[in-house]
């Protein structure tokens, strides 16, 4: 790593010319930014400054300054670090924390959408909706201190019909490395009031570059919200073993596919429910006798339609969908309503080692995934949960921090992932401690070549992310 000529005080002073001295500091001790600055990153690789712009305009001035100073630009919505992006790994870094950019610009009741700045958290947006008594539901992360923009950047998914957070985005505003401020979709048309109502403008859509990648810093976005459903029918089902879980997935799959079940279905392992309860300060989850898996879902909509789908569900599950009970149910119920479950502002709740795999929505596949994960990771007591979507399922694996302390958990996780990718499964997302390595190992040549080209185009000073040199035709010749 080349050390830039400026000492830290000088660096801070330069950044302060844009944001004021109050909004520049060293990384607060103990700050982990949701695992961005976790144990996997030695302290000498941490950013040299945290800078907190108040506006997109300030960020437009900061970005070229950081480039000119030879630093990499890291970014995070706030201290929770959800969706945070690392800057160029071989440069000293400046971390842009957008926590002050937390204006809720508009929540449109009639159009059921919000326009918010990148630092707005789910808790803030929920409070806004609640105070105005708007008939709108959110689909929040479990941690209400997470920013909405960060959730999208990390491709988090929730359980309501608006649970695909990426799909609920409508229009992005971002600052690029050169300081340009762009808007995507209809928002790029001066005077348009459809920026958050219609996703597409004219020409190529750049929106997808601003999630799970670092091509710029999102400053604002449009978000579709769900009109409060007239009827909400949540249900839970205990599943005594893996085989019955697999069977249930097969029987639910047609209902998922035709949209009969509007949202995502969660199947949580007992350990996953227990960890959530512990997080909520409740150790009821540890009680014995709980089933190994519990399925949670809900129907949303017009009462007769909900009842109709409820009957189909009863046929598929061999029992009428019914509410659950106990503390885990209470928590999952709130999740099914799109509510956040707790507020953890410093991001220490984020599990350092976690990853989510993709599979076809079939029972055989979930069994195969389960088997492969346990083969490699049983010793780390992984907490598992499955989400069923319309056409696929995901398996999320979290390795509890306690068990990771000894043994090469990251190595074992990477090995498990390698096995499963080799078996034809896909990778959905992963925690920062794994993401860089997984991207390096598993991005195929063609896609990597395209990413390199895009970075060359949009990040000419190489401040945002590492990239290979874009030599036309290189990927092809390598094949």
């Amino acid at each position, binding site marked *: 790593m080349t050390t830039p000529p400026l000492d830290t005080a000088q660096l801070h002073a330069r950044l302060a010319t844009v944001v004021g001295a109050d909004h520049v500091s060293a990384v607060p001790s103990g700050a982990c930014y949701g695992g961005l600055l976790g144990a996997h990153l030695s302290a000498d690789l941490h950013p040299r400054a945290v800078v907190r712009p108040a506006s997109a305009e300030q960020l437009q001035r900061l970005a070229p300054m950081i480039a000119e100073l030879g630093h990499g630009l890291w970014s995070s919505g706030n201290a929770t670090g959800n969706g945070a992006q690392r800057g160029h790994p071989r440069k000293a870094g400046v971390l842009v924390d957008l926590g002050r950019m937390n204006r809720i610009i508009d929540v449109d009741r009639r159009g059921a959408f919000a326009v918010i700045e990148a630092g707005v958290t789910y808790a803030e947006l929920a409070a806004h909706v609640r105070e105005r008594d708007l008939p709108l539901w959110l689909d929040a992360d479990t941690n209400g201190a997470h920013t909405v923009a960060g959730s999208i950047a990390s491709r988090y998914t929730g359980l309501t019909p608006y649970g695909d957070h990426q799909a609920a985005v409508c229009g992005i505003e971002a600052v690029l490395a050169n300081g340009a401020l762009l808007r995507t979709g209809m928002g790029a048309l001066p005077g348009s009031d459809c920026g958050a109502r219609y*996703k597409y403008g004219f020409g190529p859509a750049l929106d997808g570059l601003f999630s799970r990648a670092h091509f710029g810093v999102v400053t604002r976005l449009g978000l579709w919200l769900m009109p409060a459903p007239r009827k909400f029918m949540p249900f839970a089902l205990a599943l005594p073993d893996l085989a019955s879980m697999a069977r249930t997935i097969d029987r639910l799959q047609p209902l998922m596919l035709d949209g009969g079940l509007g949202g995502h279905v969660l199947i949580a392992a007992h350990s996953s429910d227990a960890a959530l309860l512990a997080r909520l300060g409740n150790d009821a989850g540890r009680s014995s006798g709980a089933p190994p898996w519990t399925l949670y879902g809900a129907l949303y909509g017009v009462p007769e339609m909900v009842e109709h789908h409820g009957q189909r569900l009863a046929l598929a599950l061999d029992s009428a969908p019914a509410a659950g009970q106990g503390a885990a149910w209470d928590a999952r119920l709130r999740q099914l309503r799109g509510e956040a479950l707790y507020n953890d502002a410093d991001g220490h709740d984020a599990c350092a080692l976690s990853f989510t795999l993709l599979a076809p929505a079939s029972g055989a596949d979930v069994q195969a995934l389960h088997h492969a994960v346990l083969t490699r990771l049983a010793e780390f007591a992984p907490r598992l949960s499955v989400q069923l979507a319309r056409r696929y399922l995901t398996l999320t694996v979290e390795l509890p921090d306690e068990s990771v302390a000894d043994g090469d958990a990251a190595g074992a996780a990477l090995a498990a992932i390698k096995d499963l990718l080799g078996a034809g499964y896909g990778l959905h997302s992963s925690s920062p401690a794994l993401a860089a390595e997984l*991207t390096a190992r598993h991005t195929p040549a*063609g896609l990597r070549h395209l990413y390199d080209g895009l970075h060359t185009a949009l990040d000419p000073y190489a401040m945002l992310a590492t990239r290979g040199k874009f030599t036309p035709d290189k990927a092809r010749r390598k094949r």
Partner: protein
Amino acid sequence: MKASASPAQPIDAANGKRALDALRTALGKDWVFAAGDQALDAYRDDYALAPHGDTRPWAAVAPGNLKQIQKVLEIARRYKLALWPLSTGRNLGYGGAAARQAGALMLDLKRMKRIIEVNERAAYAVVEPGVSYLDLAARLRKLGGRLWVDSTGSPWGGPLGNFLERGVGYTPYGQHSDTQCGLQVVLADGTVVDTASGIKARTDNLYRYSHGAWVDGLFNQSNFGIVTRIGVQLMPAPAGYRPYLVTVDAEENLQALLDALRPLSLEGLLPGRPTLMTLPRAAAYGATRAQYQTGAGPLRAQAHSRLMAEQARGYWNLYGAFYGAEALLDVHVRELQNALRAVPGARLHFADTRADDAAFKCRAALMGGAPSMDEYKTLDWVGAGAHLDFTAVLPFDGDVAQSASEAARELCHAHGFDDCAEFQLEPRALRLEIRLIFEREVVAQQRAAHAAVSALAARFVSLGHGSPRAHLAFMDDTAASYRWSDDALAHASAAIKDVLDAQGVLAPGKSALWPGRHSGRRK
């Protein structure tokens, strides 16, 4: 048959000959079409607009596979040729099978027409560029009809070309940019990119995003690559299906109608892409204007009244459909009926009373997953017709729509056209598609249509209503309207173009993406 037009010449004769020789060696001489070859005539805009000028190609090639595309790219780079990819080449109303400029080497992918996969369990298909909606529908029918295709009103076009134009259909899978899943793309340098996971996982066509950046949207309405494969999600055939028509007589009740429908639309109770047509637009499916009025100029009130009486329709005609089991269909109908109580003169019709309604038949087919070519009949409204569309996106708001519709009508009439518009309903927005139907071979009418779209664009853009799609002739102007913050979006796209296609061989000018714009190196 007409003698073939002489092609435009982008390079000198000696290099031209060398390039053609190289192409023939690469593809076989049967798949290279040059001067003197009648096949070259196909690469034009059948709905040409005189003011747009010359778009004659230099030559055309029809590769049969990926390797051959890579070879063509190599040759194009070597000789600095402009390659214009076409899939099914039916982009009628937006430039047809023509390139943006004369002198292009047309890259016709019609021969690549394999349906690579139909996955019935997860309800998707993977197809090549040459596969049309008709082809895909035929395959699905053969498999037992458990899956529906979402076709446009132009089903000899196909899922791949239509997605790239950001086209739309009319079932609940009608926003084609939302139902695409997985692409294979060849970049200008020949690199093959598989989006989605990119690792050839079994989930590549199940999950739309990858582990990293989601790049698929970059290839929409652009020239960043040649797309050679697409995954499209298909709708499982529903347990039941009930198309409907809502008519409202008075033009000024548009606002009341849309405001009554808005909450339903947001709640997902108006599934698909209901289309709300003006009287002339709907009437044109089953009549010609000559039956109602002779001479030029827009239809007069008297003709309107006759049309409404004879076709039993209103000035506003909303074609939509409900999906699902009978019990669900009944709930849908009740909800719609309740909403329509607030709309003066609104009437709800079903198939039983619309046997004579040609529009109903066509729309019911499209909304029911069955491709229909019947929309082409609407072009006979003026004889041997063609059309040019101007589309604007508006908020789903009755008041805004009412004024937009009045502005559209005024401008159409001022240019001598009937008010052939339709609103397509999305949950939060309306797409207002204003159709200028003109006599294909009459240059004065081509000019009038061109002038009308210019005027419509100027008016709508000034009102903040952007246009999401454009004919070749209007791409530069349309792109220029998205100029917020010093053209930031255009600059970013231009920067990408210059890196990914440094020599500018791919579709120069597509969506106003001209090579060398970012680096300042202009042609």
